[in-house]
């Protein structure tokens, strides 16, 4: 089964690397958006209670989540295309273990997502962002990023397996983006002045993922933020994996 997982993951990585757009945009777009936001929102750091004087340090958490969304959507779209074009049937005709298919797919997502994460970290360091949690904090940040990638990857896989349509998977992308925007992406929740926005951001699981990553960068070791970040990521991942496993069982009709 290890060989099967590795083979599926390897295919996922190879085909991603052979599509320049699939490599470039998930790296460049979140960083570009961060630069634009930082350009406009840097004065927000002067608000009383803003947790850092560098908006880049505050916003660096966003590319990790946004990059995960990109990696996930690409993987989900690839799987849906496999179903549409019959490659999934080719896989079904081999002794492939269904769990290996899912784990291999997620392995590919995680591998590509971690490469992106390292690039975001490198860019952060290059623009002078200080990592308050130190080297160990970077390891914890990558662990949290991995958990988020698995969770989002499983959501993409579930959509692909349920619909068998690349378009449907891509349709999920704007919806997830809305979740990202209605979160504490650009402002700490307690400083959001509009009531409905603050309530929505508090109810939004994405806020806790962002705050978990962000705490390692701007605060150091914040037990509550990390517990909430890892807790929400674990819950999303568990639910998504259950959904993906069920969808895979339904999709794999083979006897």
């Amino acid at each position, binding site marked *: 089964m290890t060989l099967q997982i590795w083979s599926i993951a390897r*295919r996922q990585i190879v085909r991603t690397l*052979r599509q320049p757009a699939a490599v470039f945009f998930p790296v460049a777009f979140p960083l570009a958006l961060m630069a634009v936001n930082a350009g406009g929102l840097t004065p927000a750091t002067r608000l009383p209670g803003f947790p850092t004087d560098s908006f880049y340090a505050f916003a660096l958490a966003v590319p990790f989540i946004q990059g995960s969304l990109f990696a996930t959507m690409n993987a989900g779209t690839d799987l849906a295309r496999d179903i549409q074009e*019959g490659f999934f049937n080719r896989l079904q*005709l081999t002794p492939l273990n269904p769990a290996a298919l899912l784990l291999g797919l997620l392995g590919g997502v995680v591998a590509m997502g971690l490469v992106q994460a390292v690039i975001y970290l490198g860019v952060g360091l290059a623009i002078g962002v200080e990592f308050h949690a130190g080297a160990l904090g970077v390891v914890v940040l990558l662990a949290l990023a991995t958990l988020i990638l698995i969770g989002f990857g499983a959501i993409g896989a579930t959509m692909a397996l349920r619909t068998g349509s690349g378009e449907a998977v891509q349709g999920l992308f704007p919806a997830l983006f809305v979740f990202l925007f209605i979160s504490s992406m650009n402002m700490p929740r307690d400083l959001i002045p509009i009531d409905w926005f603050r309530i929505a951001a508090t109810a939004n699981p994405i806020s806790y993922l962002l705050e978990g990553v962000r705490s390692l960068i701007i605060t150091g070791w914040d037990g509550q933020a990390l517990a909430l970040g890892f807790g929400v990521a674990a819950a999303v991942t568990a639910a998504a994996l259950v959904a993906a496993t069920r969808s895979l069982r339904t999709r794999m*009709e*083979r006897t």
Partner: protein
Amino acid sequence: MRPNSIEAEGLAKQFRKGPRAVDGIDLHVSPGEIYGFLGPNGAGKSTTVHMLTTLLPPTAGTGRVAGYDIVREGARVRAAIGAALQEAALDPLLTGRDHLRLQMALHGIPRRERSERADELLVRVGLTGAADRKVGGYSGGMKRRLDLALALVHRPRILFLDEPTTGLDPQSRAALWDEVGRLASDGVTVFLTTQYLEEADVLADRVGIIDHGRIVAEGTPAALKGEIGRPTVEVVPADPDQRGAVADVLARFGEPSQASPDGVAVRIDGEAELAPIVRALDAEDLHVAQLQLHAPTLDDVFLAKTGRSLEGAEEPEAVAAE
């Protein structure tokens, strides 16, 4: 070792929101045989293949492939068979060699054997030169040949080929026919679906004709053609005014049959010889523009069994996986 045969009894597939795509078919394909499954689009060919290859559970009936039950022993069936399905489903971003490596790894072929086996298969299907090119740049024929190689990686004893030559140019088609013939001579049982009469005629030891999910005729191509009978002779007179006289002469040799607008045709009694007909026309001083002897074809068999010609007999409704 279990026999590399294919058997089915009353095999049927009723889709939940669709038609009864396969309506209780019986099959017996002997080890080493090439069985041609002939029918128009939507007749139930691919659905049958999907059931026999364990991709779709049947809703009724039983099937055994390589001696294993297709419902209860799916994994064993898959280990014994190779399949190239209707769509040569390949990843355009992977090379031919990448595909072979992936397929072999998923089949659990040991690492030390993979490279050698990949080279051997690439030679066999004539893709050595293109092995390290992305499949997105392959022609239709190359994709089909790679598809065949992928079906053979684990040395299956039974091979399912679902319309393997659809859309191929004549040269690629002939190359694939040669390869199928070689496989059969190696003892591989081949179950081949096709909508091409010529393909079934040339390749298959036996042919099953399927229409509306039912097998309407089965036998060797020669026996099936012999069953529906006699050849026809068609004469186009040089002078159209002589059609009546030509018809009178031809009536001595058989019963009238359907002819082209300018011609006269009879289904001839007895031996399919043209010489007596030519002599009779000459004796009456009738000049002939064209004279043709039509041997029965599998299309005539299809016509005789279903009342329709196979060419253009596509089902109006879309059938899943067809």
